[in-house]
């Protein structure tokens, strides 16, 4: 009993819990920045650590030490809560994504129906961002906050459709079980490719990255909804962006590519091979997300909503019909 409790605590706090996730998110920020820079014919971070790999951590520490300004007019409670809630929500969502099944063969907080809960958390993250923007009482923040909500209206439905299609196909709402089924069924994974594309595009919008960096478009509205945040608060918000990046990559990897559940690599322990598969797939998704950033100009908010409703939603619904037909035909 004691040992089980201790193991669960280690799982929650160290591996694959909070510390591992934070380490991975800083690593992914570095990878994202480096890859993005290379595609743009730049160097990216260079000086801190080998090839600049400690730069995100150095930036984090630097921001922590900066002066934390709370303007007079802000709603203090909401303004202070925003960064904490953001980090908390995105970390919580990650507890339901299978990474390294050590003690049991699923994510350590998994339960039936956790997919719905994660979708709820993804929406809550945006709502909290909007509340932070509103509490800032700044004109640029307010415009950014409005854009956040408009963007949410655009991508929320296609994202939910995309994330629920694998659930329909596998008959489960448990992310870990979906990952196990998809990982062992290559035909199903291929059938899910269109929704994989939709999910990646929607996550690009959720993460506010080009071409959907509309809520924080620096050339238009300074820093958008996070204009007034500084110091420790900004550090936590930026960390929560990184955690969201990990969430997006790992969730896509789990739902559409099978996450850690792939054929074991010979000669190494099965857990290690699961871990390597998980890292490999999530990193591929991350690189795709980074690559999209380099390819486009920023859309206007009305163009984004048009695009999401006219294209993404319809393709998503057609894909559901396709998956149902394949299920009825007994192909997947």
């Amino acid at each position, binding site marked *: 009993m004691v040992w089980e409790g201790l193991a669960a605590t280690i799982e929650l706090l160290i591996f694959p819990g909070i510390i591992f996730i934070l380490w991975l998110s800083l690593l992914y920020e570095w990878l994202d920045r480096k890859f993005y820079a290379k*595609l*743009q*014919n*730049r160097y990216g971070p260079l000086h801190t650590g080998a090839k600049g790999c400690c730069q995100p951590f150095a930036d984090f520490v630097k921001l922590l030490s900066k002066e934390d300004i709370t303007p007079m007019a802000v709603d203090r409670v909401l303004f202070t809560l925003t960064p904490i809630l953001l980090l908390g929500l995105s970390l919580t969502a990650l507890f339901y994504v299978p990474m390294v099944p050590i003690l049991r063969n699923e994510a350590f907080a998994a339960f039936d129906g956790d997919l719905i809960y994660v979708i709820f958390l993804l929406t809550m993250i945006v709502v909290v961002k909007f509340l932070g923007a509103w509490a800032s009482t700044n*004109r*640029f923040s307010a*415009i950014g906050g409005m854009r956040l909500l408009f963007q949410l209206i655009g991508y929320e439905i296609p994202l939910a459709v995309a994330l629920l299609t694998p659930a329909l196909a596998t008959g489960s709402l448990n992310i870990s079980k979906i990952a196990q089924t998809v990982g062992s069924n290559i035909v199903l994974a291929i059938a899910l490719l269109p929704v994989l594309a939709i999910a990646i595009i929607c996550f690009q919008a959720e993460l506010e990255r*080009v*071409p959907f*960096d*509309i809520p924080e*478009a*620096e*050339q*238009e*509205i*300074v820093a958008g909804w996070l204009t007034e945040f500084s110091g420790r608060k900004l550090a936590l918000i930026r960390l929560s962006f990184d955690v969201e990046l990990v969430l997006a990559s790992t969730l896509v990897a789990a739902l559409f590519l099978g996450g850690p559940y792939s054929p074991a690599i010979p000669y190494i322990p099965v857990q290690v091979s699961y871990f390597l598969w998980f890292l490999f797939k999530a990193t591929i998704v991350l690189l795709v997300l980074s690559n999209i950033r*380099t*390819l*486009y*100009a*920023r*859309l*206007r*908010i*009305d*163009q984004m909503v048009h695009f999401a409703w006219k294209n993404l939603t319809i393709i998503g619904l057609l894909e559901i019909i396709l998956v149902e037909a394949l299920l009825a035909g007994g192909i997947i």
Partner: protein
Amino acid sequence: MSAEPKTAYEIPVGPQHPALKEPILLMFKVDGDTIVDVWPRIYTHRGIEKATESRNYIQNIYLCERVCGICSFIHTLIYSQGVEQLLGVEAPPRARYIRVIIAELERLHSHTLWVGVAAHELGFDTLFYYVWRDREVIMDLLELISGNRVNYAMNSVGGVRRDISPETADKIRKGMKIVKERMDVYADVLLKERTIRKRVVDVGKLSPHRAVDLCAAGPTLRMTGVKRDVRADDPYQAYDEIPFNVITYSTCDVLAQVLVRVGEVYESISIINYALDHMPSGPIRVKVPMAVPPNETVSRGEAPRGELFYYVKSNGTDKPERVKIRTPTHANIPAVCEMLIGYHIADIPIIFAGIDPCMSCTARCAFIDVDKNKKWIWNHEKLRRYGIKWYGKV
């Protein structure tokens, strides 16, 4: 605005704004996401025109070079041309060709810089980095010719200070080939990339009549289809001997501005190649006296952003009595304020960047009293008196 919407609010853009790192404040009145009114407030005063009066004609070349960092050559060219007119001398033919080559290289680097800035304002940073990387080819050529990247110090009254050797000419030809190849790629991206087209087509419209009424200049005027270019209308230096086209488009939106500038890049490349092939031999400079007889003159030319205009008055000494500079960005600000109205907040950066704003490029003298609805213009003497009175009071 007479019928002001009740939901309207104001947002300030500049001078501390990421899209506009220039000393200008644009106060926008916005209804929802639509711009209903704009008030520009320019506050650049560097006293350059006054400073020219206490320096001699040669020193003033170096002062005029520092009016703007991007079009530094054209300022010295037009200034020297004005002083040459006062003296009644003309630069030797070879110097005139060298001046054309440098002026066009400068236009090339200014326009490629603009393409990068426009891409950045659209959030397309990849294009920005690539364009600016390839702009280095042009900067290196300018450094090869003059020894400097920004302020070339090439002009002198009566000619130029450095010659272009045949080896340098070969290097310029090679460089032009690279620039042309790369520009083909970027023109392709700018015209075909759908996210860019969504942001620039039918955005920032301005009718040709309004453009002429509001005294727009340069590419901002030519994007409305008005064929006006000092190089063709009133050829200076060697432009009357070099064939080239004035690029215009008639879609009157930001896309047309992009196309005009891309077209001008190709024209500049062909002008440079032609000038290198037909460059006459001979001296590059004539000797001129230090003191200039009393006279006044107007000298103008086409800067990358539009018409540049110098008025120089001499009084028989070695210092000018008065130098007046009229620069294109200042002329374009009323036009851009009209272009902005009716579009979205998201369109502000690209429409404003469309005129290639450069606040060092602004002149400063017109009076509008909004409260009394009065406009007037003062001459130099009246303004001076007013200044003395004002500062005497304080």
